[in-house]
């Protein structure tokens, strides 16, 4: 199998794997961020330019470096390829620029946006972006559109990653929405204000990296970091029924699919992506309808963890008092404080 070295870490992957997927095999800081690539959707990637990496050595056969930065999500690896991501100053500088470009037309309405707190663009901006903006011109604006009665489209927030159109293509049978117009006038739209009513259409909310497609049943209900995520499941005929239930007290505020470290939908036990159906997502919000498995662990740095105190399950034994009674081992030998018992024996007697 061909070997590829990313940031000095060598990994062996199957021929034809993209650099991004090879990096994900290594994991950690080596992985380039991705806004448009979604491993569970065929054909996605190559649009946002956030995952560009420097290829310092093309392959063993042709060791020349590639002249330009390459999109790691759609560049297949070659044997002996050497890739620089975090170690390349060029890539870091470029990524800063790309974030600036992505934020150029993105409104600064994070305080209002329901996606805030779990938004990929927010994380990206926080990790790579600059604080100020140099953009003086007016941002493009669109009206809010209701796609069906459960999904709201804020076209102003869209970064045109095309993920939702792949959902429409690959998960639903009657595609009614897509991207119309070109350039900076391009927008996600339905076919003559057609409602998206397919059972799996709700997945476009999970797939959207920004807050362009949001759940209308959760609209302005709460902020994600005030809710507690729980893994839950129920018997569902159309989907796997494995979800994350976002609860506040004893109430379910919203249901989403379970997402992995790259904020993509997790696989179910059969290895298929566990996309969930609209009935699970929008219509079953009673706690009684779900079996709660336990709290869902978020990334350590996630704002969703705030205020959630996870107690350890180990029983704490305060053995100070017993130790005091026992005294030091050498003293015990001299003045026989507690027979010949060792500390461990006394502790087990005490319980």
């Amino acid at each position, binding site marked *: 199998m061909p070997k590829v070295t990313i940031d000095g870490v060598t990994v062996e992957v199957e021929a034809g794997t993209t650099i991004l997927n090879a990096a994900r095999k290594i994991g950690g800081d080596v992985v380039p961020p991705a806004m448009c690539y979604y491993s569970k959707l065929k054909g996605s990637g190559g649009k946002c330019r956030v995952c560009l990496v420097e290829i310092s050595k093309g392959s063993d056969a042709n060791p020349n470096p590639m002249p330009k930065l390459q999109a790691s999500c759609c560049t297949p690896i070659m044997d002996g390829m050497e890739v620089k991501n975090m170690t390349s100053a060029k890539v870091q500088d470029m990524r800063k620029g790309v974030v600036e470009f992505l934020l150029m037309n993105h409104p600064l*309405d*994070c*305080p*209002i946006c329901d996606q805030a707190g779990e938004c990929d663009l927010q994380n990206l901006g926080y990790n790579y972006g600059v604080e100020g903006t140099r953009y003086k011109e007016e941002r493009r604006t669109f009206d809010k559109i209701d796609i069906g009665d459960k999904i709201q489209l804020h076209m102003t927030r869209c970064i045109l990653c095309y993920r939702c159109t792949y959902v429409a293509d690959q998960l639903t049978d009657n595609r009614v929405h897509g991207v119309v117009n070109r350039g900076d006038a391009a927008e996600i739209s339905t076919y003559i204000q057609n409602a998206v009513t397919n059972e799996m259409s709700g997945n476009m909310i999970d797939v959207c990296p920004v807050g362009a497609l949001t759940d209308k049943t959760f609209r*302005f209900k709460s*902020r994600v970091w005030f809710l507690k995520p729980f893994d839950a499941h129920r018997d569902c005929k159309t989907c796997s029924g494995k979800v994350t239930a976002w609860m506040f007290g004893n109430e379910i505020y919203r249901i989403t699919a379970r997402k992995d470290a790259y904020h993509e939908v997790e696989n179910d036990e059969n290895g298929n992506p566990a996309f969930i159906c609209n009935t699970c997502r929008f219509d079953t919000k009673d706690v009684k309808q779900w079996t709660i498995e336990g709290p869902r662990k978020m990334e350590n740095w996630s704002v969703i963890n705030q205020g959630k105190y996870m107690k350890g399950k180990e029983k704490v034994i305060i053995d100070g008092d017993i130790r005091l009674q026992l005294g030091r081992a050498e003293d015990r030998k001299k003045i026989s404080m507690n027979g010949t018992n060792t500390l461990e024996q006394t502790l087990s007697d005490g319980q």
Partner: protein
Amino acid sequence: MADFKSLSLSGRKKDVSDKDMTFMEKLYLPAIAKGMGITLRHFFKPKVTIQYPEQKREFSPIFRGRHILMRDENGAERCTACGLCALSCPAEAITMTSSERKKGEEHLYREEKYADTYEINMLRCIFCGLCEEACPKEAIFLTQDMAPADYKREGFIYGKEKLVMKMEDIKSNTK
């Protein structure tokens, strides 16, 4: 080395003795006169107490008192219920629920979303000012006023009726 018994780390150590009092000490009269003298001297010294709330001390300009939710120059509430104040609050004193602004309410609320209820538990609040610092909309500020006392715990939970800036204060604020 000094004697161990007379050693005083704080410098305030005093030896206690139970020796008998002299006749003059038993009379107590000189001691009473001395105490009265001290009291008398205080009559002529400047007074330390002030008559709060009629009289108020001058606070430092960075004093952090009770909160206010600002209105903009048109009288619309600035708060958009983003929850960042509650997120930053170390005492978890702030709670809120939000609503969507309806058509025709543009003069009431500045943003698309607004705080339907907004409560600060003044018994929890430690007046650290982190909410003020976190606010992206310049909506919450800590004023120079102190939070007044109350007889019941419920009185310390400040809702929007106590927090939102009064309409008549808008003009003085924009000056």
